């Protein structure tokens, strides 16, 4: 087991180096630079432009900048944002709880609806129910997030007035930041109605962000279930006269869940990518919205640091899933 984990960790270092090279190259390939982005139509005097480029260290050759960046990053220093002059790590940590809260809710939403939907579709295979579930999930999977999010807002917030349009909390509440998670901070603030407000603000973004993982999970669960339901041990369980519910839940679903767990792990990356659009639409102050702004302003340290930290997150979650998977399934653990 330990050698399995070590082997996995060994792959991490080249992965990280690869990410830094890629991000660094890509951000510098985009035309323009942070100093140019600071000046508008008016432009900037060449002398001042040069002075600022020097001050930010952007006039050095790219390989020098890259090596400097990697060494500092290895020591945990991701630099300062060019726009706000605050450390990138602090800016990230300030915004991460918002993204975490939203992603977690979206994931719960996807798991709680997606797995049962997949199971039902598998059990009612080739019936209208199956076709219905699969049709809806294909639609959900193909829906552009920003469009879906706007539809939700126009219908539920503007037309029906059931949910707030955007933001994390109604403006009359201003709870002190303790955890950064609004659901918890609103309870801690003791203000009446704050928690409900936080919940109501979460509903639409959760649906918008959770729809694609929901569709993926439903389809995945269905096919895994169909495979397992055809196995001999399921037939054996049925033959022994176990109740259908027991057969499905204890014998079929448990085994079908193994590939589904892997997919859930992989969805973390999808969630972070989807968060960029969802957060922009719902004015959700998380890392997605933060990075979009940073790209517009060519804030190199923020873009590089933000992607590096997000990638770390995805890698760590996938590592955990792999390890978990190894625990569940010994065949994986011993594979070369």
């Amino acid at each position: 087991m330990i050698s399995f984990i070590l082997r996995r960790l060994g792959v991490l270092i080249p992965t990280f180096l690869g990410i830094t090279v890629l991000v660094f190259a890509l951000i510098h390939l985009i035309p323009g630079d942070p100093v140019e982005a600071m000046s508008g139509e008016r432009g900037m005097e060449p002398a001042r432009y040069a002075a600022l480029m020097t001050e930010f260290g952007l006039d050095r050759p790219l390989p020098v900048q890259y090596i400097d960046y990697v060494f500092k990053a290895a020591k945990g220093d991701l630099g300062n944002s060019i726009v706000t002059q605050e450390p990138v790590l602090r800016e990230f940590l300030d915004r991460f709880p918002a993204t975490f809260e939203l992603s977690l809710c979206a994931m719960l939403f996807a798991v709680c609806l997606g797995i049962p939907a997949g199971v039902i579709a598998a059990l009612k295979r080739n019936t209208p129910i199956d076709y219905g579930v699969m049709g809806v999930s294909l639609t959900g999977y193909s829906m552009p997030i920003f469009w879906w999010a706007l539809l939700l807002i126009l219908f539920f917030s503007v037309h029906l007035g059931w949910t707030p349009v955007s933001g994390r909390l109604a403006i009359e509440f201003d709870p002190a930041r303790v955890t950064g998670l609004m659901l918890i901070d609103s309870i801690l603030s003791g203000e009446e109605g704050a928690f409900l407000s936080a919940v109501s603000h979460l509903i639409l973004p959760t649906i918008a962000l959770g729809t694609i993982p929901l569709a993926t999970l439903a389809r995945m669960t269905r096919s895994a279930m169909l495979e397992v339901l055809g196995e001999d041990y399921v037939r054996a369980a049925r033959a022994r006269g176990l109740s259908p519910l027991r057969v499905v839940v204890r014998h079929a679903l448990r085994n079908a869940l193994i590939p589904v767990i892997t997919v859930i792990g992989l969805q973390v990356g999808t969630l972070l990518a989807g968060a960029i659009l969802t957060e922009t639409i719902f004015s959700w102050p998380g890392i997605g919205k933060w990075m979009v702004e940073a790209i517009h302003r060519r804030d190199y340290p923020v873009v590089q640091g933000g992607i590096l930290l997000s990638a770390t997150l995805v890698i760590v979650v996938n590592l955990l899933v792999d390890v978990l998977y190894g625990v569940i399934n010994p065949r994986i653990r011993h594979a070369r």
Partner: protein
Amino acid sequence: MLRITAIASGLLLSLLATPAFAAKTLVYCSEGSPEGFNPMFYTTGTTHDASSAQLFNRLVEFEVGTTNIVPGLATAWEISPDGLSYTFKLRKGVKFHTTDKFTPTRDFNADDVLFTWNRMADANHPFHKNSPGTNYAYFQDMGMAKIVDKVEKTDDYTVVFKLKAPVAPFLANMAMDFMSIQSAEFASKMKAAGTPEVVDREPVGTGPFRLQSYQKDAVIRYKAHDKYYEGRPKLDNVIFAITPDASVRLAKVKAGECQLMAYPKPADLPAIKADTSINLLTKEGLNIGYIALNVEKKPFDNKLVRQAVNMAIDKKGILDTIYQGAGQVAKNPIPPIMWSYNDKIKDYPYNVIKAKELLAKAGLKDGFEMELWYLPVQRPYNPDGKRMAELVQADLAKIGVTAKLVTYEWGEYRKRAKNGEHQAVMFGWSGDNGDPDNFFANLLSCDAVAGGGNFARWCNQEYDGIIKKAASTAQKAERSKLYEKAQEIVKEEAVWVPIAHSVRFEPVRKSVVGYKTAAVPTNHYFSKVDVTGK
């Protein structure tokens, strides 16, 4: 005893019966996060709106809704006959904000003006390099250090600005956001406490509101400044709800989550007009969208060709298609709301036959090929550069001119255009101090050819002489005449195809009372605004 209890309980009951004190709050859906709260450092409207418009005052201010300059922290000013010395009489009894970290012990005075000025002008000032990586962009761009020789304090309430040469737009510059007056006392206290960086993070100004809190990328909260010199604002709270998507901003206004929003989409305007709970305020923009013809490149070195192109383009068609009613056809480099606008000038008529004749006269009977650079981004003065380019391309085809459409990423676009690599380029300008010089000198002077702002790369001695004279003349009427003459030259030379002045729209819920759309700069001012019940 019983009576006392009865009175007391009666009082208590009446207290309970009166509705809880309802704070008046206005929520404005803004489009982006501010870069910071010190207006000296930044050039974007978003940042100035969130900092200088709410938190600070200037010595002189722009009257809200016009380009007129009115008293601010200075009650009066006097310009010496030679135009070299500006004496400002400062307002007495102006209080700075009280915050968690700072309680002012004195009123605003000349020391604050000196501190504000010297911090930007003097590279050795202890606060000049207070925050890393920042720069005094606007101060430098407006050439303040080149204009002003020195600033002197005559007494606590008199400050004299000595100029190197008479520069009439100086006064308008003093009303700009970057000239927001900061507290010298706050700075010295923070320095003494060993935390000078607080000065730029937790702003203290004299403005109508003070900063209560900023939740990054989400909400900025302001509280009324109880001792504001014009009287306490009627609103108790102003809140900026940062909402980057224009459709979502509109949804919030419709749902009543915001009372006011930034930048509606042109396509949404008809729906907004139809909504009975929303007033759609309009303001003629202080801007110009144009196509500059590079006189250094053939065939635009020939005036006849430039005039022909001017006649070939159907501006009315462009206005209808792209601006959807949110603009006016332009004929001059400055917008009609600006003083000195020459309305007597006749625009080149849209006339394909005449244009062809001019081309033939220039020896280009069969037309020519050219590159037209179009804006890669949406700008306030041009909602859709690509679409505009396509229309212009079609118009030019009618006189035998083949236009190839070219564009680059926005930063790259500006860089290349400043170097003069283009033949014809689409650009625009939004005025920042309401003075005509801000357009004429920045966009068409000989200096601006080297500086890069003159995209026609046109240098005309007669024109240059006129605008230089206008800039050094103090009398507005005399200046106005000179600028009117300058517009005649520009029209005759036809170095631009002026396209449009866009109109700004602001959807405001009907519950908002007393709000006026500002002309310059495009900030939001709430000191005299009130809200009524839903």
